[in-house]
């Protein structure tokens, strides 16, 4: 960006500064630390000048929004056209309880829905299963059948509202239910918009809600890609996630590298199945964490777009620009929030939300201040939503696109993270790819080491957590926490019983057998699941069949 002569001159000037004014001060007052590191332990220099971005080619590396390599954003107008979607992850108790919360959030100005399902639903158990004991409705909404889904979206027009569903192992079933509910509203599948997370690889790596082993899981994922590309074209078929990998303790570079490596694995898998990359890739989406090292995160998001664009063109030969765009949802970092002095969490979330916006996210969830205690109360989720609204409508940061571009620091960091990510790609490749690396415990070891190191740093006060290892008060803040109705489990159990009495059990049995046969072969499973779901086969019944055919995954033991 600068001519060679000018750069030499600048280098000289910097040296003079270092030996002059800087030295004068350092001789009298040492800096606060010997080394300054990001939260991911990346070294941060005192000063960034043109020297640090020597050789940076604007057109090649930074470019223009909506154009390869998309560093500055995936749309030409970004937030000047439309603000990011304000999409708060929500769900608890029964479908009725959650339906009420959705209506509240939409009233308060939320612009998209995001469904949190309880663990039994995520793990393929009906509410009346033994493994569901105590878990029904606790960390998400309980959905055992289409009946629950109908209640969940009662009064919510699915042709007007887009819905993201955080569902993975049972994604096919929930998607089928969603489509069925839309059809009952008179909305055809080609009109519905939304996302299913559907990212099994990160479940094995960091989240733990897996059911089947990797191979059949990949089959279901690609079945969904295929089915949706033909029947549900406006649906994002996957949200390739780094959020959870980061929550499990990885560094920023690891979060990005492992997520994109997983992404490549999915693309590879779909292509091997015979799908055309430009047909399914435009509907891939991503999900990142926004952690508390402000600038590192912004650099991470920009690097993500650039790396993915290059991968899609160079490795997979994509021609459609939509295939090259990394569109992502962000959630602010849950693991950065504390139980001590919970009001501090509002500030943390604000900064994290801001870096996501400055990083160009397409949609955003902000955590509530009571994150360390319970699911968000109405009051605390309102504040979280307002955080986004203040940023979007008052702060002015959305008035221009990618405002931090050109900052010597940001561009240097973006390059650095990109370099680190590519090194991780090489490592994973050398191990034989994501699935083999997974088997060998590579991801678990990296994450376990990073999280242990961080814990030690916090305990040694090398990393400060306000209210926890500095500025502590020992007082406990009284909060009005959300309580999930303990009667939900019984209500659900009764409902399932009634459902099984009312429906055509013979038909259900036939359809379940159809699923079994399809699962044993290699037909696309989605049409079979859709038929069964419409006849009110339960989630647990369908999963039991699949568990029998596919087996269950056993976790890795890696620390």
């Amino acid at each position, binding site marked *: 960006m600068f001519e060679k002569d000018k750069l030499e001159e600048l280098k000289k000037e910097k040296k003079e500064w270092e030996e002059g004014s800087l030295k004068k001060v350092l001789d009298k007052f040492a800096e606060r630390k010997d080394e300054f590191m990001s939260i991911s332990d990346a070294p941060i220099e005192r000063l960034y000048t043109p020297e640090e971005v020597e050789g940076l080619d604007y057109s090649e590396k930074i470019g223009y929004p909506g154009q390869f390599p998309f560093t500055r954003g995936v749309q030409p107008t970004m937030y000047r056209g439309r603000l990011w979607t304000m999409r708060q992850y929500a769900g608890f108790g029964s479908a009725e309880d959650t339906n009420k919360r959705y209506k509240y959030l939409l009233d308060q100005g939320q612009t998209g829905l995001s469904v949190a399902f309880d663990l039994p639903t995520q793990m393929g158990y009906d509410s009346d299963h033994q493994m569901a004991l*105590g878990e029904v409705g*606790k960390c998400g909404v309980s959905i055992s059948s289409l009946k629950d889904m109908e209640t969940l979206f009662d009064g919510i027009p699915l042709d007007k509202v887009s819905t993201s569903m955080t569902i993975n192992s049972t994604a096919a079933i929930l998607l089928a239910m969603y489509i069925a509910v839309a059809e009952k509203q008179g909305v055809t599948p080609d009109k519905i918009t939304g996302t299913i997370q559907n990212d099994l690889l990160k479940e094995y790596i960091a989240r733990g809600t897996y059911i089947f082993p990797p191979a059949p899981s990949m089959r279901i994922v690609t079945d969904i890609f295929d089915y949706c590309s033909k029947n549900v074209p406006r649906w994002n078929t996957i949200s390739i996630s780094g959020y959870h990998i980061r929550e499990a303790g990885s560094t920023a570079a690891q979060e990005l590298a492992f997520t994109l490596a997983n992404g490549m694995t999915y693309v590879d898998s779909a292509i091997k199945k015979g799908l055309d990359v430009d047909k399914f890739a435009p509907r891939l989406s991503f999900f990142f964490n926004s952690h508390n090292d402000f600038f590192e995160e912004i650099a991470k998001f920009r690097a993500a777009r650039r790396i993915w664009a290059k991968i899609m063109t160079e490795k997979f030969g994509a021609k459609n620009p939509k295939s090259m765009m990394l569109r992502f949802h962000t959630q602010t970092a849950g693991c950065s929030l*504390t139980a001590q002095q919970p009001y501090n969490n509002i500030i943390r979330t604000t900064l994290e939300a801001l870096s996501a916006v400055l990083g160009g996210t397409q949609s955003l969830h902000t955590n509530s201040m009571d994150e360390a205690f319970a699911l968000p109360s109405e009051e605390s989720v309102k504040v979280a939503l307002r955080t986004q609204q203040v940023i979007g409508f008052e702060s002015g940061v959305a008035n221009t696109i990618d405002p931090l571009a050109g900052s010597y620091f940001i561009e240097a960091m973006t390059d650095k993270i990109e370099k680190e990510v590519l090194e991780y790609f090489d490592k994973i490749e050398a191990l034989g790819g994501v699935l083999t690396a997974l088997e060998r415990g590579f991801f678990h070891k990296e994450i*376990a080491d990073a999280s242990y190191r961080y814990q030690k740093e916090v305990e040694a006060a090398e990393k400060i957590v306000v209210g926890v290892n500095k500025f502590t008060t020992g007082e406990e803040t009284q909060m009005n926490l959300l309580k999930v109705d303990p009667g939900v489990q019984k209500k659900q159990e009764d409902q399932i019983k009634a459902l099984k009495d009312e429906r055509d059990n013979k038909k259900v049995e036939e359809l379940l057998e159809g699923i079994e046969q399809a699962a044993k072969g290699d037909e696309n499973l989605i049409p079979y699941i859709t038929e069964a779901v419409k006849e009110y086969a339960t989630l647990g019944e369908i999963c039991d069949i699949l568990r029998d055919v596919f087996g269950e995954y056993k976790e890795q033991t890696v620390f």
Partner: protein
Amino acid sequence: MDKKIRILMAKPGLDGHDRGIKVVARALRDAGMEVVYTGLHQTPEQIVEAAIQEDVDAMGLSILSGAHMALFPKIIDLLKNNNAEDILVTGGGIIPKEDIEELKKIGVSAIFGPGTPTTEIIKYIEENVKN
């Protein structure tokens, strides 16, 4: 005597978030303890049976899913039925203050919530296991 503290670490129920339990397990190992780690998706029966066979001095259970008021009591009951009440029961995760008080009443010795330093956990276990 080569006596070591043996502790069982497990995640009861369906919750899959294991960052905390893995960090604590490693810290306990580094403090010289033998950590029997049985991992995710454990039923109360599996936990208690493992605790008995491994003759552990203590157990550390991690629950972030909100299911603690159903799972802890079951485990405490099973320990009683198997005459294993001498095993120190501790836990961690997302457990609100009122629930912690309830759990202590039924026999849970300590709950180590978010932000607890591992050094505190180690100290507590060393001082409270029955010798």
